[in-house]
């Protein structure tokens, strides 16, 4: 069994290993149509989500292409409550509900691709490899 690098029971400071989030990081669920961003973190640390357990949701999001460093752009929104959303993830399109998009943190997109946030996260991700 793989042991997560993020301890499940650490409510006060849940995330010591990955605290280098950029200041403007916010969930994809709050982004509006037309917004472009870079994924800086996937997964809700310790937060109980009402659809799936956080680890399962994280893996499903990763499997469909929401990985740290990916470019995301909100293409379309549903009519009611602007939900669900259609997102361009790198070179493909994915539809999801805002509820699930809560587990994806994004930062402003910097077109040169050398976004400091992305780079920093990449290093962290390397460190947490089992």
């Amino acid at each position: 069994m793989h042991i997560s690098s993020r301890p499940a029971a650490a409510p006060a400071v849940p995330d010591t290993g990955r605290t280098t989030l950029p200041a403007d990081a916010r969930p994809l669920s709050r982004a509006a149509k037309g917004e472009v961003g870079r994924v800086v973190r996937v997964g809700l640390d310790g937060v109980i989500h009402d659809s799936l357990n956080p680890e399962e949701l994280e893996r499903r999001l990763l499997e469909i292409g929401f990985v740290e460093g990916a470019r995301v752009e909100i293409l379309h929104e549903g009519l009611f409550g602007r939900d669900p959303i259609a997102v361009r993830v790198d070179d493909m399109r994915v539809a999801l509900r805002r509820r699930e998009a809560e587990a994806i943190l994004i930062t402003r997109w910097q077109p040169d691709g050398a976004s400091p946030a992305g780079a920093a996260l990449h290093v962290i991700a390397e460190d947490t490899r089992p």
Partner: protein
Amino acid sequence: MSLASPFSHGGAPRIALVGNPNCGKTALFNALTGSRQKVANYAGVTVERKEGSFTTPGGHRVQVLDLPGTYSLRARSPDEEVTRDVVLGRFRGEAEPDLLVCVADATNLRLVLRLVLELKMVGRPLLLALNMFDIAKHRGIEIDVDRLSAELGVPVVPTVAVRRAGTVDLLKRIDAAAEGLEVVAPGTGNTWHEPSAEEVRATHREAERIIKLAVRPPTRPDTWTTRLDTVLLNPVAGLLILLTILFFMFQAVFTWAQPVMDGIKAGFDGLSAWINGTLPDGLLRSLITDGVIAGVGSVVVFLPQIVILFTFIILLEDFGYMPRAAFLMDKIMGGAGLHGRAFIPLLSSFACAIPGIMATRVIDNRRDRLATIMVAPLMTCSARIPVYTLIISAFVPDRTVGGAFSLQGLVMFGLYAAGILSALLVAFVMRRLVWRGTVEPFLMELPAYKVPDAKNLVMGVWTRAKAFLQRAGTTILSIMILIWFLSSFPGAPEGATDPAIDYSIAGMVGHWLQPLVAPIGFNWQMTVALIPGMAAREVAVAALGTVYAVGGGEENVSALMDTLGHSWSLATALSFLAWYVFAPQCASTLGVVRRETNSLKWPIIMFVYMTTLAYLASLATYHIAASLGWA
């Protein structure tokens, strides 16, 4: 590694096709097998099993299995569990595959390369087929096949499933592999385990690295999909277009099928008439005409609707519209706890629940699919219309209310509305109260639009039609013969004055059930009519004609209307209408549910819950009407 053929066990080599959803895997399967394919269910589960066979140019006969699409071997649904277990060779009753062919959409490699890296860990002989290679080329995507193969450590072969020559290279590989040449990644030990989130990230990075080395991004990206989505996913225009498509589809199922259905019906009636004129009166004649011919006829008559509906569904699926439609409908259907994709089956159920229930195959999640199947028969199908019309015209005065609305029309509308509302309510109870807990996330790829391929369409529709006739046919036919038996045995005694059905088992059951249905205002004639009425809802009209001994049956509806108008109270008539909104008066529907869920449990649950609802609705209707002085 040994150079022995991966197919060295002597029997016909077995290939399994694995790939992401929408990668053209089924098109490749169709291209390889042609019409030599078989659709069934995997043992013990409701997942569809598609197997076929073909002979390679080198003369090797090969079995090929089209596994459900997946992004990972880490199964998330029963379909994906089948893929995982077959790939790992641990699915009970399935032989281990000798060769895994991973099918990739060459225009969209990112996610599938991670799947390939996962499949490599399984340690089975493996080959990557780059499908839709022509489209990738056309877009200016340059794939260095040798480099890709070297970096992955898996042989790669380009394919174009929709073209005749597009599978030549793949077939050559399979032949060479059968000769023992090392043209596929050889079998090693299985080191696969369920990857953690960090391992998914790591494989993803590896896939990214390989893509950077071996794939040059498109010089002419697909702008059609973006342009079409601007309209089709527009919150307002998109919904209007969806409703237009649905309206057109519903009209087609409803009206285009009618002449063909009438033709089929006339054909079977003619056959019955011919046999009636040829054979002497007796049991054998009755069995052939009322049992077998009526039974087969009642199955075949649904075929036009099924063919039309599946033509639409497969066209929309191949075009790539289905996930968009689910996107647009998700919020609306989600209110009742149903999946966005449930609207097509439910809409089709207005024509007939049978194609509707078959259409639930577009829903991946098992519980979402079951909930949709269970409520589909509550939608007012066209077979209820003759019953509604008969009762409404006999009992509801033909006058206008509120200045413009026909009272009869309003009652009809109310019956439709009652069906829709109760379906949403039952779905809500099932998904939100019975199956509480995990709400399946709505997370799906919106694939690029593609022009549907005619050959795939024909084969898809043919497969559905065949499956319906073979599997549902046997179940439905046997139920029909049972109903015939109940309505015919024992026969009327010499010199009997009442209709023969009174003396049959159905008649006895009707009399026996009478005290049970007295509270809902039904008389014994109605109860007796409900038993042959199980064959199909509209049969109740003819059955009422039979028990009331009104000559001419269906043709002489106005005589029947008079009889009913005199012998039923208004409260009884309304109670009968309420019964028909809910009651599972259709053996064919139960037969199809049996086939689609692969179990007896679900048709039984459906029968029980619908009968209960019908009884309660009739009880309430009868007593409310009686208290209004209509008894």
